[in-house]
């Protein structure tokens, strides 16, 4: 499976109801060193937007509200976006099917994860 198989794919609950579309895939770099040089990225979860498969342009990660009109418009288009953990994904075919008791997480990063430029 490659990333393109997931992006834009419809997401369904176990019952078959359409929940939304995959707008992004969140990766975590906390695994063992791959060949001693690079950490292998691990899929943490999928970002699911209920109405549209277009990009959220990064606004899901933070609470940034500016520039006002753009931020408001993007947030409105993607209202209800949530994160599902990869462990809650039951099957990936053409569609992504979630487990029966999947949980919706907030898509924002915890505050401590923010990287600020050192300069």
């Amino acid at each position: 499976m490659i990333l393109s198989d997931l992006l834009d794919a419809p997401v369904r609950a176990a019952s078959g109801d359409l929940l939304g579309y995959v707008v992004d895939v969140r990766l975590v770099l906390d695994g063992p060193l791959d060949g001693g040089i690079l950490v292998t990225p691990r899929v943490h979860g999928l970002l699911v937007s209920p109405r549209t498969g277009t990009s959220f342009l990064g606004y899901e990660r933070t609470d940034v509200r500016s520039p006002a009109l753009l931020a408001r418009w993007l947030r409105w288009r993607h209202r209800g976006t949530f994160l599902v953990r990869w462990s809650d994904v039951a099957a990936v075919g053409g569609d992504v099917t979630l487990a029966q008791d999947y949980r919706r997480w907030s898509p924002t990063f915890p505050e401590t994860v923010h990287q600020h430029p050192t300069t």
Partner: protein
Amino acid sequence: MKRLLGVALGVLTAIGGFLDIGDLVTNAVVGSRFGLNLAWVVVVGVVGICLFAQMSGRVAAVSGRATFEIIRERLGPRTAGANLVASFLINLLTLTAEVGGIALALQLASSVEPRLWIPVAGLAVWLVIWRAKFSILENVTGLLGLTLVVFAVALFLLGPDWSELADQALSPTVPGDEGHAVYWYYAIALFGAAMTPYEVFFFSSGAREEKWTVKDLSQSRLNVLVGFPLGGILSVAIAACAAVVFLPASVEVSSLSQIVLPVALAGGKLALAVVIVGIVAATFGAALETGLSSGYTLAQYLGWSWGKFRRPAQAARFHLTMIIALLVAVAVLMTSVDPIKVTEFSVVFSAVALPLTYLPILLVANDPEYMGKHVNGRVTNALALVYLVVILAASLAAIPLMIATGAGS
């Protein structure tokens, strides 16, 4: 003292660097057909490029990333790839226009057929890109480009009816013999000439070349906020010269010799020599900037090593891209296509492509992950949103207007 000199140099090169073949041709054509009735567009364009250059310079200095790295990170490879194709092709079109402009200016000086000058111009641009230091190529062409001030001098020598010019500029109307669609088509062309995407690629990548940090922000802001408006005044002077000489006679400017005719009429051979030096410098400088931009955009998108601060052997694909872009530009010009026409199309397509780079820069300039505390302030964002609307409107209207007006004819 050294700091003061640095500021003066920065401002002066910004003035000289503002003007390129697009500004020269579009302002002269517009002046000859509409007088100063479109001068307000230059003001809108100059404020816009100040805003855009200031934002992209700040993003480059603070985050240490150049424009196309950011575009790819923010939009994802697919959308950014489409963005790259459009931006690269339009930049190539602008490069072609600039190289053609060098050849036309050299033809004016020498009476030698431009097709003999085109390969020479292409070769000279390549040699400078290959060999010269970044700071030298930027400063020399910028300072020599300042000789275009002769357009402002010529305007005074022509002794125009100032009240009429002021009347056109301050209460613009569509002249009786021109349609509204043509008026707005040229408004977009003029806007695209002032706000060309390559200026931003060059500006932000140049910030990386010169290793800007947060400390350099105030100087870069000063260069932009003083230099570009003064460059804009020169643009209006070019339009006013054309308005004084050609508008009463209903002559439409369609060649470089017509663009410089008002200067020759006002100041004689000496002024003509000065203006030719200015045009060669301005087009040569812009050819360097667009040439470099072709390498910058592609290399940044694909993650190749890039930059003049590396030796060519260490950034081979970056240099190869620029060589190929220059060869394509020369080949297109050798088909005897009129560089003035190429220029007219390039400024309109610049306006079409502008949102593709403007939007990602605006988003990243607001993102504390990249910018820390140097995110856009409220005033900048308010202005930036107004310009987002202007840029989108110009971009969407450009091609329909081009078709409806037969490219302004």
